[in-house]
């Protein structure tokens, strides 16, 4: 009897369709995938360990470099965790601005996904259209934070500084323009027979499997499970906003695409509400031991100057304890677990990256699929290796 020999193929780490340095070892029977093993760690920087050597302040730029498509969400998650340690309540205005910015960031991340995934599937036009809108979205975020991808704008106890003048108009004109643009993508993709052929029924993940693998975010919701941290465990005043959680039914790539497009529309709703009902008030919490004073006071007030030096040079010292906070980033549930031993440096920071757990399901998804569908399945998860390898 002839013995079946499988061919082993290395996909990545330099493969352009793995969105980073992901390596997947595929065992093939002809064109069909028999077994696949993802290998990670090519982008490992030891970020969790670096946290321990830095003050709480200095840890924040590291979070931008996890999931570089949604810096605001990462900043927010880390700040919420540290604020839970500090036990401070953030002013309403700061909370609303945080919601607004992280939703804009979600739109930017989803636009990037639609654009690049369409390119993976061979629809090149959508790449340019998606990047055009993403550029506008990044311009809005750039105006407020000063950088395109590494915002570093959300700080413990509030925000770095007040919104710049003209920001609201910019954000408004962007979100007014966007629904029409999303319709354009839908015209190009949703009914397109090639797009449907490449995505419908491909990369299927059942609801049980999705829960079993710990998948979160749009991938989980495309499988029909209604779980969104924004609704389940509201943070930063999300309970005051009116929005829906879009759900899929089939759990394939096509549904993930539809869910993400719908999420963008919901994000537009949230941003609109946040702009309309933006409360007046301070943007920083009144906790002098944790929040540095205003720059103008430093020049004139001696006490403020001393406090400024104390906080900048020594950092903040949260009380002993531990805190875990998870938020809904564009990829799924992003969690930060911070342990404090009472010094100015965290004792331990553990990150729960959504992409890492989502990636676990890829082997299940592409079992028995064709090689071309591997690219589609990996792309549909919207993984970012910066977050997986940390």
């Amino acid at each position, binding site marked *: 009897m002839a013995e079946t020999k499988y061919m082993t193929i290395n996909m990545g780490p330099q493969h352009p369709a793995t969105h980073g340095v992901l390596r997947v070892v595929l065992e093939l029977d002809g064109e069909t995938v028999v077994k696949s093993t993802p290998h990670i760690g090519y982008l490992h920087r030891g970020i969790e360990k670096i946290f321990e050597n*830095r003050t709480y*302040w*200095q*840890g*924040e*730029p*590291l979070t931008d470099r996890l999931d570089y498509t949604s810096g605001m969400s990462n900043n927010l998650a880390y700040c919420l965790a540290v604020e839970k340690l500090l036990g401070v309540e953030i002013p309403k205005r700061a909370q609303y601005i945080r919601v607004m910015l992280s939703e804009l960031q979600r739109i930017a991340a989803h636009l990037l996904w639609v654009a690049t995934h369409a390119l993976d599937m061979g629809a090149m*036009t959508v790449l340019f259209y998606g990047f*055009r809108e993403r550029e506008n979205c990044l*311009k809005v975020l*750039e*105006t*407020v*934070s*000063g*950088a395109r991808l*590494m915002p*570093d704008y959300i700080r413990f106890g509030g925000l*770095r500084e007040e919104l*710049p003048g003209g920001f609201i108009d910019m954000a408004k004109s962007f979100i007014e323009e966007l629904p029409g643009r999303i319709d*354009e993508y839908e*015209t*190009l993709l*949703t*009914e*397109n*027979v090639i797009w449907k052929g490449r995505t419908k029924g491909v990369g299927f993940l059942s609801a049980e499997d999705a829960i079993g693998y710990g998948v979160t975010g749009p991938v989980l919701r495309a499988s029909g499970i209604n779980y969104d941290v924004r609704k389940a465990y509201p943070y930063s005043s999300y309970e005051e906003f009116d929005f829906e959680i879009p759900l899929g039914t089939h759990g394939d790539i096509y549904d993930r695409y539809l869910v993400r497009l719908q999420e963008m529309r919901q994000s537009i709703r949230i941003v609109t509400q946040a702009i309309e009902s933006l409360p007046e008030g301070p943007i920083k919490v009144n906790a002098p031991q944790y929040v*540095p004073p205003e*720059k103008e006071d*430093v*020049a004139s007030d001696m006490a403020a*100057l001393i406090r*400024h*030096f104390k906080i*900048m*040079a020594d950092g903040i010292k949260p009380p002993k304890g531990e805190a875990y906070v998870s938020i809904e980033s564009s990829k799924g549930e992003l969690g930060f677990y911070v342990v404090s031993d009472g010094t100015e440096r965290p004792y331990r920071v553990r990150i729960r990256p959504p992409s890492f757990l989502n990636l676990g399901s890829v082997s299940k998804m592409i079992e028995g699929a064709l090689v071309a569908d591997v690219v589609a399945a990996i792309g549909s998860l919207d993984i970012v290796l910066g977050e997986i390898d940390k």
Partner: protein
Amino acid sequence: MKVILPLLKGLRLTFSRIFTKPITYQYPEKKHKVPERWRGIHYFKKNEAGETACVACGLCVKVCPNQCITLEIGEKFDGKRYPLKYEIDPWRCIYCGFCQDACPVNAINLGEDYEQAHYRKEDFVLDMKKLLAMYEDKK
């Protein structure tokens, strides 16, 4: 028909784009307009005497997450401190803007310049002379 119609709709959309103005701009000739808060290459503010406004307190050195600032403190005859040597390692810097936030006299700032291309490796290093020259460019 069910197959063709969506494709035709897509084609109509892309064809209609031909007659609109291009949104790309020719980069090296036309520069990207950066917002006011842009965190670009650093510069030093000058005081009335034309010297650096830096008082060499060392707070930026302390707050920098990547320890990319080298500072040597000098002292004038009247006891005032000034930076004898101030250098920013451009390869370590992540442009987080913490030095700008920390500076009590608003001496070190992150400017609007974002182009870094030099023929020699040494030209990247931001020393006192360069940091002060950047301020001139800004004005």
